[in-house]
């Protein structure tokens, strides 16, 4: 009897193992392959029911479309991406708001903070806890997707690294750089941080001296200016976005950055429309966009992450930031106008 029972158990156990092994192995594999940001099955089901997502973004199609394909592959939700500049997206949203149109689900630009609060949904995605401090709005209406550190850059064939100034005060006295510099006339965040750091009086003194001694050309287009510096059109750009300088450097351009105190920082952000046509897909998308997977994808193109668990590309690019004061700063629409006026006044853009 005992032998029969033992044989029965052995046979049953073997059969059970054979029967359920594929399911067990499959579940383990599925759990191993499941994206880290897909944690809410109910939200996923609701998003799949909606089936669509409309994204307004400033990220170029070469980076954005493959990234959103990851989202579609994981969820089955079809994504429609519309790319434009920060101001164009803001303008488009403005016009659509006036027409009371529900057109977009999520917006990803560097000025989501300028949207009126009532346009954005207050929502805390699960992945938000993994973001660095400061990469989110206190009212939960936007989250940082990538970081824009502001640093000067130079042409490595025209300027010796050993001759670079160690401070903005020193840079302001570099009369040998007269006519060889450029600045972007939309660098209001950098300007505001300079005034915050040095104070109104000293800040204005340093910048006025800089404008007088360096007499920089004033243009717009940070990437175009990064290319111009690498090409030798200008020896120095007084301020640019670190990732763009790196982008051109990695493509073989003769340029590099150096770090001066303070470093202005702002974020490329994501926000959810408060009247999104696909609200569940929007919430899922926000969580995706700040996930390790999405930020790792963007890091391949040189964008700097807002998570500590995503490796910076190139490695060590941010090591120098440990010794300086990094100041996150985001300007409201009113602040933008104010600092544009100050910029025009100091650098005599006309």
């Amino acid at each position: 009897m005992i032998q029969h029972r033992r044989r029965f158990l052995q046979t049953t156990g073997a059969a059970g193992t054979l029967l359920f092994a594929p399911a067990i192995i499959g579940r383990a594999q599925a759990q191993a392959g499941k994206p880290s940001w897909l944690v809410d099955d109910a939200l996923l089901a609701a998003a799949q029911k909606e089936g669509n997502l409309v994204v307004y973004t400033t990220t170029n199609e070469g980076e954005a479309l493959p990234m959103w394909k990851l989202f579609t592959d994981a969820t089955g939700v079809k994504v429609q991406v519309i790319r434009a500049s920060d101001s164009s997206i803001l303008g488009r949203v403005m016009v659509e708001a006036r027409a009371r149109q529900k057109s977009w689900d999520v917006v990803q630009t560097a000025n989501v903070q300028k949207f009126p609060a009532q346009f954005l949904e207050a929502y805390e995605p699960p992945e938000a806890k993994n973001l660095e401090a400061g990469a989110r709005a206190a009212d939960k209406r936007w989250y940082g997707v990538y970081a824009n550190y502001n640093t000067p850059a130079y042409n490595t064939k025209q300027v010796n690294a050993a001759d670079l100034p160690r401070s903005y005060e020193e840079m302001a006295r570099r009369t040998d750089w007269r006519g060889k510099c450029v600045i972007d006339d939309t660098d209001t965040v950098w300007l505001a941080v300079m005034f915050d750091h040095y104070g109104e009086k000293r800040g204005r003194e340093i910048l006025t001296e800089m404008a007088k001694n360096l007499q920089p050309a004033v243009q717009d287009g940070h990437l175009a200016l990064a290319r111009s510096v690498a090409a030798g059109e200008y020896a120095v750009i007084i301020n640019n976005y670190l990732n763009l300088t790196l982008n051109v450097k990695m493509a073989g351009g003769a340029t590099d950055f150096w770090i001066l105190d303070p470093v202005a920082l702002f974020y490329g952000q994501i926000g959810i429309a408060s009247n999104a046509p696909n609200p569940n897909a929007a919430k899922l998308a926000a969580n995706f966009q700040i996930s390790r997977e999405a930020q790792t994808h963007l890091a391949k193109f040189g964008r700097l992450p807002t998570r500590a668990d995503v490796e910076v590309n190139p490695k060590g690019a941010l090591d120098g930031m440990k010794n300086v004061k990094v100041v996150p700063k985001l300007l409201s629409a009113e602040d933008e106008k104010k600092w544009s006026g100050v910029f025009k006044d100091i650098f005599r853009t006309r």
Partner: protein
Amino acid sequence: MSVQTASGPLTRLHSGSVFARLFETRRIVFAVVAIIIGWLVFVPLAALLYTAFTEDTGFGPGAATLDNFVRAYNDPVIFELYWNSFVFGVGSAILTFLLGAAVAWAVERTNAPGREVFHALALISFAIPGLLTTMAWTLTLSPKIGWVNTLIQNLTGTSFAFNIYSMGGMIWVLSSHYFPLAYLLMGPAFRALDVRMEEASEMAGANVRQTFFRVTIPLLRPAILSTMLLLFIRAIESFEVPRIIGSPARIHVFTTDVHRAATSAPPEFGLASALSLSLLVVCVIAVYFYRRVTQNAEAFATITGKGYKPVPVNLGKWRWVVTGLISLMFFIALGLPLITLIWQSFYKTLATPFAATATAATLDNYHYILGYPVFANAVRTSILLGMMAATCVVLLTFVAAWIVQRGRSPWGWVIDALAFSPIAVPGIIVGASVLFAYLMIPIGAYNTIWIILIAYATIYLPYGMRFATSGITQIHKELDEAAEMAGAGTWQLFRRVLLPLIAPVMVSAWLYIFVLAVRELSSSIFLIGPGTHVLGTISLSMWEEGGSYGAVCALGMVQIIPLVVIVTFLRWLEKRVSLDRR
């Protein structure tokens, strides 16, 4: 019984009822065209006026205010902007005209060898997007990195350098890019010139110079004025050249402020609109004076019922000199930037033509472009939109021009000015106004190709109108009258009399608008949707956000090739429908 009046066929009296007169085919067609043009123009003009006189609140309707005008015009620097814009506009118009008219004369009026090649080269020139051409000139003639300057310095041992960053540089860059417009406008005018008038002048004892200034130029006056008007307006509303070349030199023009206001974050549409109203006033005044100067249209008609004899001028041995000079002009105006673009398209970083570089040449830029996620879709959409926009605009404006020229109404200039007015409205405001209008009107155009087509048709109406006006002025109305007296209805008149005569101008207009529409950008920004990407926005995306110099240049090269094919086909078609089968 029909009665011909001094006013022409449009005021012909019928013996039928008022009801029958009202519903004549011709009147219905004219009314439909007038309504369509009126609606197309109304949307951006209404938006311009509304936003200029309301507060810039951004997300909701603003209160009525004059603050936008105070901000726009109370800064004394505005006078500097006006002056710079005027100098830039006049200088560019004159140089552009001279370059384009010279090519048009050589191609259409002479037996200089290489005419067909010159025609193709002229069209290639404006097939290259303005942003790329301007960038190419900075790489060519920048005092610091321009390769031509480096070549000159190496050859001469001096430090001489052309400085592209100057008012002269701005005028040159714009003119070298826009002279095909002058060519396309003046070409048909030269072709239609009846040489017998010049022969009569010479038989009366005038020399070549006298004949040219006292016969030829006056006959071409409508075409010249149309061309100059368009070139002047086009120059003062241009912003790519002032942005890339003027700003580093601190030469600021009117449109620099308009563009800055329209592209700030958030956009200041009110300020941009208040500034743009100046441009609108200039356009209206210019059109009014144009109409005053050309009001005796019969005096300028070169195609009459007495026969039409386009004959090339035999230059003799001078034809080789003319060919040489035109070729040199093309080499400098088109060849230099094209060499820069082609060379750069094979390198990821800056590469000086014909010089050794640190990195190897590569096809990676072309792989990047051809593999860009929405590139194929953008090409298809842009070509389709170009064809549709060109067709719509040519049809609308040629009918409208016929109304204006033949109607003899004292208010004809109003229609002309209205159709021309969108040129004064920045493309970005056209885009925003069209977006708003068609969000409010529930006809399902939003996020489709149709809303973009509406914006394109609006933007290119002025060009079509200038081509059409120039062309129809040259046809004497006695040909219309003769056809009607012979019993031709409206459709027969158009198909068998007018169309063969104005076909060359229509094809030129179609071609120009097609090429512009394929690379249109500023109005598309607000209107593209999923699946309706266009080449202009792809180019901007690469310029602003990703891709090297080389990738941007490769994109320009890739755009030129299909345009060359289409241009060549259209030239063949143009020669088929033209009366001049040389």
